């Protein structure tokens, strides 16, 4: 049946977004499926074109069977396109969400360390290998766009800091979960973060490290 593959694609895509807490790892880009859907659509396209060529305008309106089959093929092709775009859109949303969750740290997002931190015991693909080359380009492009946008604000505030809840205290107690090495904080203070140590620091200074999973609030 026309459209079966496309249906398979959107169902899988929908399923992957069902759980947001905890966030599921982004599934691998379904390249083989997408290629076969594109192929199917191209075949439909050729079939429509050749049918329209071999019959003139007159017979088109008289030959009901032909009109019917053309309509079905046409609709199936459009539906395929819609499913493909829905799939891509869904993934784009997921990619952007992960970008924001990581506080805009592209390098961190694509490093395998991130994956190890999120799912230490699963062998799910890390984000870099789950993305298609085009999606990687998109992510990089988006990163550049947002960097441009947030520079206007950067002397006063960092747009990419979390907005889940309004800030309460300025200081925060943190425990080091992973070695972060020596980090220069706001105001030129140098802190050597070693696993297991506890610190009391300004929240805005270490917010990013908390987001990226080096520190944990106590």
């Amino acid at each position: 049946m026309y459209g079966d593959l496309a249906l398979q694609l959107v169902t899988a895509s929908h399923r992957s977004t069902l759980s947001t807490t905890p966030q599921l790892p982004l599934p691998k880009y379904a390249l083989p499926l997408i290629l076969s859907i594109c192929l199917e659509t191209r075949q439909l396209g050729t079939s429509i074109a050749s049918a329209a060529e071999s019959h003139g305008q007159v017979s088109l309106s008289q030959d009901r069977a032909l009109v019917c089959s053309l309509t079905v093929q046409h609709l199936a092709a459009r539906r395929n396109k819609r499913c493909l775009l829905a799939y891509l859109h869904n993934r784009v949303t997921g990619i952007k969400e992960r970008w924001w969750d990581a506080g805009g740290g592209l390098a961190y997002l694509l490093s395998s360390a991130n994956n190890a931190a999120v799912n230490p015991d699963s062998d799910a693909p890390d984000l870099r290998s789950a993305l298609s080359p085009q999606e990687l380009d998109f992510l990089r492009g988006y990163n550049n766009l947002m960097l441009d946008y947030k520079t206007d604000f950067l002397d006063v505030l960092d747009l990419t800091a979390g907005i889940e809840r309004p800030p309460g205290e300025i200081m925060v107690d943190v425990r080091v979960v992973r070695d972060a090495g020596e980090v220069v904080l706001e105001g030129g203070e140098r802190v050597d973060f070693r696993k297991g140590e506890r610190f009391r620091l300004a929240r805005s200074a270490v917010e990013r490290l908390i987001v990226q999973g080096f520190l944990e609030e106590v």
Partner: protein
Amino acid sequence: MSSFFQEPDSDDEIPQLPPELPPLHPVASSSRASSSRPSITQDSFLSRLEATASPRPGIRTDHEDGIGEEMEEEEEEDEYELEEGEVRRLGKAWSRERGTGGILAWEGELVDSLMDKLEQQQKLVDTLKSDPDTSEEEHFKLVLVQTEMERVKYLIRSYVRCRLHKIEKYSYHIILTPSLHSLLSGAELSHAQRYTELLHTHYSHSVLDSLPEWLRKMDDTYGDGLSMVTKPNPNLPVLIYCTRDCGEITLDSGEQAALAKGSTHLVKYRLVETFVLSGQVEVL
């Protein structure tokens, strides 16, 4: 944030708050009880209300009065009074932006002025902090000031990001509709343009280029009337509080509903858009 925007679109008119709900404005219920519809149970209404209200952990502007009064420096106090009004105005703009589906006008002056003040305040705080004459008590007050600054920053951040979210969602629609351009700041408009470009390039390179040519467009309308260009849904409900009398509106069912001063209602955005834009009602 995303959950907030993904409320199910319902074509049902959501009626006004039931009498026992708004402790703030008990006046609301009595005048509107006549048009209340039995079809929507209070349970479903309550859960909707919660879904709407919960993702806004309140930065409550009234809370800020307290901190404002505790400022130690005389000359700062005057400035702070002024800023307080701005914070409150931004708070309103923020909840209006979050509560509605479409993009609203960018509060550029407000944000710029607040950003300038934050910068000055930060310098002042830094000076006072490093000043050895600053007493213990003053240090405590400084902490309060800093907390307050963090909260204002949060407000700006959340406001800007909420707009970005909408701009990205409706980027193509915004590009195609010149009348919307005046609502955006220059940076936002260029972001919308570049984002649309980026997205379309991505779609084209990923799949569209391998489809037949007549399927490569990005602004098709499907047979069922659904367009590829996402537009804000004007039928989404908004929760509004009337700061003054707004007369009567006609609901879709043909019923009349009075928007009396001090009352709270949940209605389709389309019906009250003019009031929201003119500031006669606040979006909660």
